[in-house]
Each structure stands twice: as structure tokens, then as C-alpha cells.
């Protein structure tokens, strides 16, 4: 039942993700790209280079480019450092994996501790009676 729910959720979100990729909005891209001089996302910056990048994004959206295409064009000019989120490949993949692995490891440790604690309580119970 739970698996069916997850599948339905994925199916519900997929069209939105695809629409965002093929028809990105100005706001989305400004939140996902970094101003190369002030190091904040474009939507937080009014630096001259950020204003120029915003004009570029508007022009590329109007020309019908996808989100990935626009990001790739900006990264080709300014380097991969303009991407606000680390890439999901190569060394940058670690930035995605390590936090999840840490969460998983924490969950395992907490489960083990809880299991040991409940077992100890169960073993001690007869002594109390």
C-alpha cells in the first residue's frame, strides 16, 4: 500500500518537474544560480554582473531554451561555480550522498540503541515484580 502511495506521489510530481525543465521561470533560475562576484543567488543580488545574467536568462527563456540549457550556457561562461546546488556527478555527488548516508547511519545507531534499551528493560522487568 505504501509503495503504491509513493508511486502515485512520483507520478503526481513528474509533470511539474518536466514542465520546470522545459519551460523554466525567471524566478526558478535566479534561485538556482549564483552571482559570480557577490556569491549570493541571483534573486538576492543587484550586482551589475547579476543584472546582466538576469537579462541573459530572460532572453534565453523567451528564446525557448530549457533550464539545463540556460544553466549550461552560464556555466560555460562563468564556470560551474555559478550553479547554486552541487552537481549530481563526479566529486560533487558526495555533497548529496554524505548527508543522506549520515542520516541513514544515525537512524541505524538510534535503532540499535532503542533495541538494546527496550531489551534491557524487558530483561529487568521480572526483577521488579
Amino acid at each position, binding site marked *: 500500500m505504501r509503495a503504491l502511495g509513493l508511486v502515485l506521489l512520483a507520478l503526481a510530481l513528474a509533470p511539474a518537474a518536466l514542465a520546470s525543465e522545459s519551460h523554466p521561470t525567471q524566478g526558478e533560475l535566479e534561485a538556482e544560480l549564483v552571482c*559570480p*562576484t557577490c556569491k549570493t543567488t541571483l534573486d538576492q543580488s543587484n550586482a*551589475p*554582473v547579476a*543584472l*546582466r545574467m538576469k537579462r*541573459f536568462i530572460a532572453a534565453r527563456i523567451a528564446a525557448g531554451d530549457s533550464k539545463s540549457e540556460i544553466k549550461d550556457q552560464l556555466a*560555460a*561562461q*562563468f*564556470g*560551474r*561555480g555559478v550553479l547554486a546546488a552541487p552537481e549530481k556527478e563526479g566529486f560533487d555527488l558526495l555533497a548529496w550522498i554524505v548527508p543522506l548516508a549520515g542520516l541513514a547511519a544515525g537512524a541505524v545507531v538510534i535503532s540499535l540503541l532503542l533495541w538494546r534499551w527496550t531489551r534491557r528493560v524487558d530483561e529487568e522487568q521480572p526483577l521488579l515484580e
Partner: protein
Amino acid sequence: MRIVKVAAQLGALALVLSLFGLLVWKVTSGDEAARVGDPAPPIELPQLDGSGRIDTAAYRGRPVVVNFWASWCLPCRDESPLLEAAWQRYRNRGVVMLGIDTRDFIGDGRAFVEEFGLTYPNGYDGPGKLADEYGLTGFPETFVIDREGRIVEHVVGPVEDAQQIHDAIEKALA
């Protein structure tokens, strides 16, 4: 069981210490800004016009003026004619003028060069890697390097007048 527990505690301690060490290293190991008296970081970049590469190794023994600029930088527009004039004045005395278009669209940079009629070589440093090596804090900035490859003058902000850049170049020629 006790050995496993101690090993786990030591492992956790080692992990925390190594993360702390990484944090300290990251905070303390930022790029050192190039200062007057320091050897100038070497420059090896593609030419802005796509015609080849710029390599300061080819200019060894000659004074070099390195000007970091960008097309979106308004003060860069004010100083460009001064730099072009200085280049025309000193090129026959062996001085090399290099413009470095940094954190800019390459097309905008080329249009800027054309608009101001710059005839000295210009390199393209889109991602700003060289600018980081020189420790740039803003735009524009100019470094004047002597024949031994040492920085003798560093102008933060635009070159204000012809005398300022002439004095700096004379220092490099001395």
C-alpha cells in the same frame, strides 16, 4: 563487546576531529592576495578574441601591466582610454599591456574591446580563477610587474589619470 564500544567511540572522535580540522583548513587556507613586492602569479589564458593564448612566460624580462576588467563594470569604461594611451606611449620601450576580461560574457567582452578600440592583448578569465589567484576585491584592478616578475604597483579601482599609470610603469622600467 567492550572493544567494539571503545573502537566505535574512537572512530566517532576521529571523525569529529577530522571534520573540525577540515573546517579550520578551509577557513585559514584562502587564496593569498598578490601584494606589492610579491612575485606575480603567472598568466596563461585564452585570448578574448579567440586567436590564441596569452602566456606571461613569453614576456620574461619585460615590464607587464595587468588590468582586470569586465564589460559590466562602469569604472572600467572610464579607465580603458587611459590604458590604451599608456600602451601606445610605452609599447616601444618593451612594456607589455594585458587586459583580463573577468567574470563576463565573452561576447560582451569582445564588444567592449571593439567599442574602446583596445589594441593591446586581452585574455578571457570567465570563471575568475586568475582573478582569485591575484586576490581581486573588485573591478577594475591593475597590477604593474617589473622585469624580474615582481609586482611594483597595485591600483585598486580605476586608474584615475595618465600620470598615475605613467608613474607606475616608470617604476617597473627603472
